[in-house]
């Protein structure tokens, strides 16, 4: 829906098309007819599309800068190390699409075919899609309001030809807004295995994660667990450990215990992680002996096992 007014009451609301701010909106007649309250046909179309996708995982964070995209990318790398596992990585951070850079795919373009948009393949078993591939310059800004972002997400879910996929990982922007609501709504019929929540140890980050957990509970999105990033730093010179982001309230461990949510793992801060991402390389292969790599691998294994044990609600199709 284009040209939505500032105080849009919402296409599905009782005031749709009837509110004072609806005057002059190009969608006024459509909303007043009650069409906005009808279920979006895309939900069924996406359910059909998702029949070829065995597991769907959202990676969320309450706060920016906690390493969510880094984690999403390495979850994809880790799962795809098994050549028989088909992995798809979808970046729905429309305004800050960093996945192409982290995956070493900057400058790649997306192609259209009869069966839809083709993702960019890093390997035969690892396909990636991001709005970053649709932008012609690294300086281009995507200055879009919610409805336009939602339209893009719908297209990503409905029109990308992933092929047969074992794991679809969706990297999201921080927060609990349009992108997150749209993902949950469009995937309502297909089902989502669950969400992985990323945080750092400090209370300021945990506060936002608790809100993210509240969001998951409100929209009935299962939570696979929490990953605590940047847990401790080992000085390369003296080898002593320090806490760069002090866990003043017990870190993710205390929060998970209090809320009854699995702590999937704690990943220490290794400067090589940032460098690998900047170079578009997998940290898992660049630094195989780093304690951070061991931590990532343990988390990835737990996620794989968790998906094997549970099918998402509403998901049709063969058993995994």
């Amino acid at each position, binding site marked *: 829906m284009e040209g939505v007014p500032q105080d849009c009451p919402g296409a599905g609301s009782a005031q749709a098309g009837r509110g004072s701010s609806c005057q002059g909106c190009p969608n006024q007649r459509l909303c007043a007819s009650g069409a906005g309250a009808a279920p979006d046909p895309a939900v069924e179309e996406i359910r059909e599309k998702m029949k070829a996708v065995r597991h769907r995982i959202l990676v969320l964070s309450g706060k920016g800068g906690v390493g969510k995209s880094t984690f999403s990318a390495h979850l994809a790398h880790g799962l795809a190390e098994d050549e028989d596992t088909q992995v798809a990585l979808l970046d729905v951070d429309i305004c800050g699409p960093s996945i192409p850079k982290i995956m070493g795919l900057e400058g790649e373009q997306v192609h259209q075919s009869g069966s839809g948009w083709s993702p960019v393949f890093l390997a035969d078993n690892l396909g990636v899609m991001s709005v970053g591939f649709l932008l012609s310059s690294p300086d281009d800004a995507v*200055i879009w309001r919610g409805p336009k972002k939602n339209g893009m997400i719908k297209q990503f879910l409905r029109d990308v030809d992933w092929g047969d996929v074992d794991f679809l990982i969706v990297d999201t922007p921080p927060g609990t807004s349009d992108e997150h609501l749209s993902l949950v709504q469009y995937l309502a019929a297909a089902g989502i295995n669950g969400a992985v929540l990323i945080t750092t140890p400090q209370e*300021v980050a945990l506060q936002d994660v608790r809100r993210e957990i509240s969001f998951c509970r409100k929209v009935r999105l299962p939570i696979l667990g929490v990953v605590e990033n940047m847990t401790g730093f080992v000085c390369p010179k003296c080898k002593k450990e320090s806490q760069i982001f002090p866990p003043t309230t017990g870190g993710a461990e205390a929060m998970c215990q209090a809320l009854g949510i699995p702590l999937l793992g704690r990943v220490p801060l290794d400067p090589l992680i940032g460098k690998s991402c900047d170079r578009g390389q997998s940290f898992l292969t660049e630094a195989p002996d780093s304690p951070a790599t061991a931590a990532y691998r343990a988390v990835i294994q737990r996620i794989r096992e968790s998906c094997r044990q549970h099918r998402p609600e509403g998901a049709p199709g063969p058993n995994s």
Partner: protein
Amino acid sequence: MLRAQGRAVHQCDGGWVPVFVDPEKSIALMSVGFLLEKPDEAVVWRGPKKSALIKQFVRDVAWGPLDYLVVDTPPGTSDEHMATVEALRPYSCLGALVVTTPQAVAVGDVRRELTFCRKAGLQVIGVVENMSGFVCPHCTECTNVFSTGGGEELARHAGVPFLGSVPLDPTLARSLEEGGDFIQDFPKSPAFPALSAIAQKILEQTATTLS
């Protein structure tokens, strides 16, 4: 972070009363955090509702006479950013302070933010590079945990001032969370001179804009 959690927002004839964080009432604060019934409550709003609240924050809060209104925004170039610019545009002297961390992945997103500033007609006061190096408290070796140099390079590429780098300081993080007054308690922190220098540059720049 400003030790104002749990405070309530009241109404007066002039509008909503902001929360003052110091006894001298030199820093007033408004946040959706003050409007939540519970601190862990999620704000699950789509763009139009967020934009409407931002307009209210600008229009309906009884800020009183101010020297500086500092607006902290979420990452991105979407509803919140457009709403803030639109709500503040009628008032003069609107500028943007753009914060990045040093690594290329962060800079990759922040250069798009600079494009947003240009398109929105926002003057860029400068770029700040945060989390720039960590000094080990045991041996004082400085490690660039999030790489180095990205902020300065970004400012050069975009033709905007580079205001400075702020190193990582766990005592800053701890102080913010434990209710300390960082400026009072840690003048010896490596972050303190960096933050003071940046604040000074901003004061000088904005003074020349006003005169």
